[in-house]
């Protein structure tokens, strides 16, 4: 298949893009063995520091544990300042609209009344939480931390354009890798940061703490913030511990919390201490066994009652899943126009919805060209990449979609942009995406950049770490 390609560094085999020229010159001067040694050094440091993630259901060959490293690539992904500026504006706009939408869904539902989103799309959605109806949250912010996945693909003229691939508004992860990747680059190649004006990202934990404090309940002037983790066997445990440490707040588990007299407390060595803001890294379903899954031991019994009374803030709010569901995604551009009266700055990927008979017909007829996704799937599971699948796989998926058309959407197979990456045979182009982390407290803000994920398998478009993806440092070049 001869789809147009877009490489972030090389405009053509002989021409390096302007914002990469400095780096490319430097890279050309590096002896191969030096770069190889740096790669080994990076791996050793990541292992010693324990920057690992757990793979569900996996075991090492010696059964010693399931902690894996996420491969780190030495070649940074570079974005020029003007591109970032417009991306940042687009992200602020999009996250504002999404927060307005969630507030609307759980209050007056104007967008349904206006006929822009069919009501069954909301009320039949498993992510809709009736418990949140009429609940007021501080600053009307629901998604305090949003991970917006952005890809770049060539348009008809071969120019790279950014698209939002999906919004992650529940418990988006990966920000610790953004920070650790930068630290690693500065450790391995300090000279590069003298030669290039790379915008810093290390203040992310400060912004996060500021965000969390800004949404504390009105009842307290000096809020106590905690990070709630499912525990050390969770795949993102490193990140939970890392963020708690960087913010200087307690990392708690459900067993550390209890509810008394309509407030939440944590057990400390000096008796109970009240908790005001919970940055939870636990899904809604596990937050409160009295309301959601009764068998969950990861949450705290009675938490939702306190939350509904406004005596504790949960970040992200309960029920944000209604806005990042793949079945809601196609409506985001309309939301921006409806709530903000603006034209969307960032594009959506054109999307076919199985629930529309016309779209479904197209989906079933062109499955071999499309990416078909289960609307409630995540992490690269439950999807079909048409061009990369066998005839049998396609037929199997076709049957599944036919049986439950509502459950699926489809998008054209975007030729994700590539970036030169170290692989077995040397340096080769590999597909990448970008996840900036957008913070909403008093206002919407973010550190420049995000986490760049890279699909290390040749031709693969799946960048998820659970599917063998790696990461790169992301540079926003200042003018």
């Amino acid at each position, binding site marked *: 298949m001869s789809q147009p390609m877009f490489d972030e560094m090389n405009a053509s085999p002989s021409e390096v893009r302007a914002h990469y020229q400095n780096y490319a010159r430097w890279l050309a001067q590096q002896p191969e063995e030096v770069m190889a040694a740096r790669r080994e050094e990076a791996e050793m440091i990541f292992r*010693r520091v*324990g920057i690992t993630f757990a793979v569900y259901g996996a075991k090492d060959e010696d059964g010693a544990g399931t902690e894996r490293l996420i491969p780190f690539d030495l070649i940074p992904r570079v974005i020029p300042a003007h591109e970032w500026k417009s991306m940042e504006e687009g992200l602020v706009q999009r996250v504002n609209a999404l927060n307005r939408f969630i507030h609307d869904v759980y209050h007056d539902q104007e967008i349904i009344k206006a006929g822009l989103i069919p009501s069954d799309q909301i009320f039949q959605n498993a992510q809709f939480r009736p418990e949140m109806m009429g609940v007021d949250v501080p600053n009307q912010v629901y998604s305090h931390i949003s991970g917006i996945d952005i890809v770049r693909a060539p348009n008809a003229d071969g120019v790279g354009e950014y698209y939002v691939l999906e919004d992650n508004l529940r418990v988006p992860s990966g920000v610790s890798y953004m920070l650790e990747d930068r630290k690693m680059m500065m450790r391995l190649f300090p000279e590069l940061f003298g030669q290039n004006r790379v915008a810093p990202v290390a203040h992310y934990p400060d912004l996060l703490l500021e965000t969390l404090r800004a949404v504390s309940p009105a009842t307290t002037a000096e809020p106590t913030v905690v990070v709630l983790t499912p525990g050390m066997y969770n795949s993102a445990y490193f990140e939970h511990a890392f963020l708690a440490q960087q913010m200087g707040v*307690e*990392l708690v588990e459900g067993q550390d919390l*209890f509810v008394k007299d309509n407030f939440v407390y944590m057990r*400390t*060595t*000096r008796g109970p201490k009240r908790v005001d803001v919970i940055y939870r890294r636990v899904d809604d379903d596990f937050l409160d066994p009295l309301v959601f899954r009764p068998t969950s031991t990861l949450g705290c019994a009675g938490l939702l009652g306190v939350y509904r009374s406004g005596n504790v803030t949960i970040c992200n709010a309960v029920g944000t899943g209604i806005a990042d569901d793949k079945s809601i995604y196609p409506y985001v551009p309309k939301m921006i126009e409806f709530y903000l009266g603006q034209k969307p700055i960032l594009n959506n990927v054109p999307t076919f919805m199985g629930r529309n008979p016309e779209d479904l017909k197209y989906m079933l007829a062109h499955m071999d060209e499309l990416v078909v996704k289960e609307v409630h799937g995540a992490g690269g599971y439950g999807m079909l990449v048409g061009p990369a699948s066998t005839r049998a796989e396609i037929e199997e998926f076709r049957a599944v979609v036919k049986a439950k058309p509502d459950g699926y959407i489809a998008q054209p197979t975007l030729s994700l942009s590539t970036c030169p990456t170290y692989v077995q045979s040397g340096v080769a182009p590999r597909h990448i995406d970008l996840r900036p982390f957008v913070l909403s407290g008093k206002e919407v803000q973010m550190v420049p950049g995000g986490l760049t994920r890279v699909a290390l398998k040749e031709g693969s478009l799946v960048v998820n770490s659970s599917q063998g993806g790696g990461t790169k440092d992301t540079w926003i070049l200042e003018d």
Partner: protein
Amino acid sequence: MLSRTADHLFWMSRYTERAENTARMLDISYQTSLLPQSAAVAQVGWEGLLVISELMPSYTAKYGKDITPRNVMDFMVRDESNPSSIGSCLRAARENARAVRGALTTELWETQNATWLKLASYLKTRDFERDPGAFFEWVKHRSHLSRGVAVGTMLQDEAFHFYRMGSFLERADNTARLLDVKFHAVQSDFFGAASAEDQEYDFYHWSAILRSVSGFEVYRKVYRDVITPERVAELLILRPDMPRSLAASMNEVVNNLAVVANEMSGETQRRAGKLKADLQYARIDEILSTGLHAFLTQFLDRVNELGGRISRDFLVPAVH
């Protein structure tokens, strides 16, 4: 601080200390077994090791009645089913550290993690069998390093004091067990007039005990005299300036406890203080005349009870 965090810190240091003491005892049994002595004497040493840790039943269940150096070593170094093996202790220490890595300094976490990574490769390659002495030395060094990094980098807040309390409570326990077993082994001719051969055996026996707690040179410095069981007992029980003695360990427990005291811990502090005072004002001849074994058994019970009380007061408090 969070009770669970304090609990993990407390156990992280206890397990690290326990791994060190197990390595010390194994090392001494191993070194002693290299000396020209009867097989029976060596056997007593290996048996003693299992008795100290109350592991005889689980050892015989797995390896049978035959106590061989190779099996004991395997059981005490790498056996994952034995919670007191060096492997199990260092794994538990690292798991506890990982559970609260955010509460540790980066240096301390990396020290614990690096120990665990290296241990895994030691156990996998069975490198420790080729030179057990070097392996035990390594375990001791990692424990020294971990302690030194903690003291050198941690803020001296509650976290630090729970960490320290764990080390010294474990050390008090381990030193008492060591004394109990080693004195037990020679009880028959404890105060009798021994033959020249026995005297020679005694010298190695007592000097081995001293070495296992880094006390051989200390003994020479303090007493400038031949090694006698009474003085060994005095040094390891009553000398507050001997870092691995019961008195020194209890002093540290009491001091750290005082800093973290809360509304519930009054009785725990009183009992810890009493145990400390009992050592402070005791005399070795009194202890020996009433019976060392009885004294140490009672001491271990009291230390054990103290651990339980610290748990209830601070680490795993009852709901509300």
